[in-house]
């Protein structure tokens, strides 16, 4: 007969790729338990967990975007630079439109009700454009993604430094911090976490339940096969890189909202952190495999480690060693599990 029973098949198929991330989740749970035992309520508190989540909110967006890209067997090294460029343009737009130079330097912002939304839109637009540029370089110029985004990493960051004069953007209207950066919905949920949640849910649906997600996996698994069945691979890749750019732009907005400035010298290692998060979460650099839940867990493992270590008082250098070891351990164990499943 053709199958082992449709019902059982249905049940298993309803959790696509989730079983893979279950293991990494166990590691995260183990860390949480270990630190809770070591530190008690200093670690195990709602406030601490919310802090961890807010502090990780930007990286989470980058990791989600990069997951899509890596699943297509590509990579995006420019995510940190797009974040910075978006934050600079968003902040400068807000400052420019919220009042005259004199008003703004005296900390009054008569037009911020217009300035702030337009600034946000500008920042998001920058993210989209930068992502689109990455996509064009990969599809039209046929540059390998590593090279293409290595180049744009420099171009976007350089542009940000030119625009900002190398300085953190001053005089940003504080309303963006009070309304978004530090605001808590219903008095409890910090807005950056809410934004992260929405993005994660939409991403999970898109990746695992829509044609867009299916094509993403297919192209990463075998781009030529996708082409043969008529999928417009170039057009899809363009969309994927644009998506990554958009999410980097959104992360830039959150950055401005949290810190009330655009930090030009920051986020230099965010690209590697985002890629690590995806890889820890089970996304394969060879394409075709990955999950959003995995990347979320992969974002939180280093975040929890750092948080726990600081609370415990471990020296900073040991923290980095430990995080590196956990990264390697997580990936090795996951790869062993995979090759046990596969046959050549």
């Amino acid at each position: 007969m053709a199958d082992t029973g449709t019902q059982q098949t249905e049940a298993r198929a309803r959790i696509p790729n989730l079983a893979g991330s279950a293991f990494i989740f166990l590691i995260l749970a183990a860390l949480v338990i270990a630190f809770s035992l070591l530190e008690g309520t200093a670690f195990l508190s709602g406030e601490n967990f919310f802090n961890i989540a807010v502090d990780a909110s930007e990286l989470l967006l980058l990791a989600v975007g990069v997951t899509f890209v890596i699943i297509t067997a590509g990579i995006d090294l420019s995510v940190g630079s797009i974040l910075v460029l978006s934050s600079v343009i968003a902040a400068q737009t807000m400052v420019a439109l919220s009042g005259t130079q004199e008003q703004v330097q005296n900390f009054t912002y008569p037009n911020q009700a217009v300035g702030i939304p337009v600034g946000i839109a500008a920042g998001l637009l920058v993210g989209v454009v930068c992502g689109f540029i990455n996509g064009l370089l990969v599809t039209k110029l046929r540059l390998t993604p590593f090279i293409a985004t290595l180049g744009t990493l420099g171009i976007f960051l350089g542009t940000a430094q030119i625009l900002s004069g190398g300085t953190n953007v001053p005089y940003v209207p504080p309303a963006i911090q009070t309304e978004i950066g530090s605001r808590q919905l219903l008095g409890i949920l910090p807005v950056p976490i809410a934004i992260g949640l929405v993005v994660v849910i939409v991403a999970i649906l898109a990746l695992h339940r829509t044609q867009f997600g299916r094509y993403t996996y297919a192209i990463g698994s075998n781009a030529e096969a996708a082409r043969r069945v008529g999928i417009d691979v170039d057009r899809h890749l363009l969309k994927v890189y644009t998506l990554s750019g958009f999410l980097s732009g959104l992360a830039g907005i959150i950055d401005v909202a949290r810190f009330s400035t655009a930090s030009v010298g920051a986020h230099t290692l965010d690209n590697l952190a985002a890629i690590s998060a995806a890889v820890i979460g089970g996304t394969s650099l060879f394409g075709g495999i990955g999950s959003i839940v995995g990347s979320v867990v992969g974002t939180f493992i280093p975040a929890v480690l750092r948080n726990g270590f600081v609370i415990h008082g471990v020296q900073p250098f040991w923290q980095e060693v430990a995080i590196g070891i956990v990264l390697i351990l997580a990936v090795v164990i996951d790869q062993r599990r995979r090759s046990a499943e596969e046959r050549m």
Partner: protein
Amino acid sequence: MNGNGAVLQARGINKSFGAVQALKDVDFEVRPGEVVALIGDNGAGKSTLINVITGVLAPDSGEIIFEGERVEFISPHDARERGIETVYQDLAVAPQLDAVANIFLGRERRMSGIMGRLGFLDQSRMRKETDDQLAELQVRIPDLTKPLSTFSGGQRQGVAVARAVMWASKVVIMDEPTAALGVAQVGMVLDLVRRVRQTGIPVLFISHNMPQVFDVADRIVVLRLGEVVAELDPKKTSTDDAVAAMTGSLRGEERV
């Protein structure tokens, strides 16, 4: 334009790669309800001919006639659109995806209404359709939800063949469909080929395996060094004759 009722015809096809002429003045056709085997030694041009007929490659000269009309296939998609399904030698499956996803690749069923317009897939419907179709074709696939990378080469080939047969409405083309298969699976594929023929859809396949060719083909076309050198009737010729034609000891006589 022509009246002999061939579904797919290639006329005067020439194709060169640099200094090497892979196909020379090839005339070739596939008629309704028949199984045609295309055989030839390595480098005879079999895969190239398939690639030209299915739109993967463009011929340097010559024409392709489909159901009486002259066509130009710019991409494999064009051929698919007309109901020509191909199982390529490299299978063209996505190993990280499962059987259902591969079978519906490029042809996904979406949900109805607004969810569908947003791109949401009707995964249960696709699973059911696959189940039903595979049952009808009597094809065994071990687990529809595991990625193809966990299958053996033979099982993957089974999925690729099932995919082509499920979707083809005019012609099924297979390039070495039994190459990686065990005995039982070979039997399954050959049965499948016969079943397809019964529906009236012709099957064209390339093979190196003489016993299988003689078992299932109605007509055998022999390619040698880019030219059609013989067309044989498997009922009237022997495997020795076929091999001789492939290697050049028999010169272009028996056209059927």
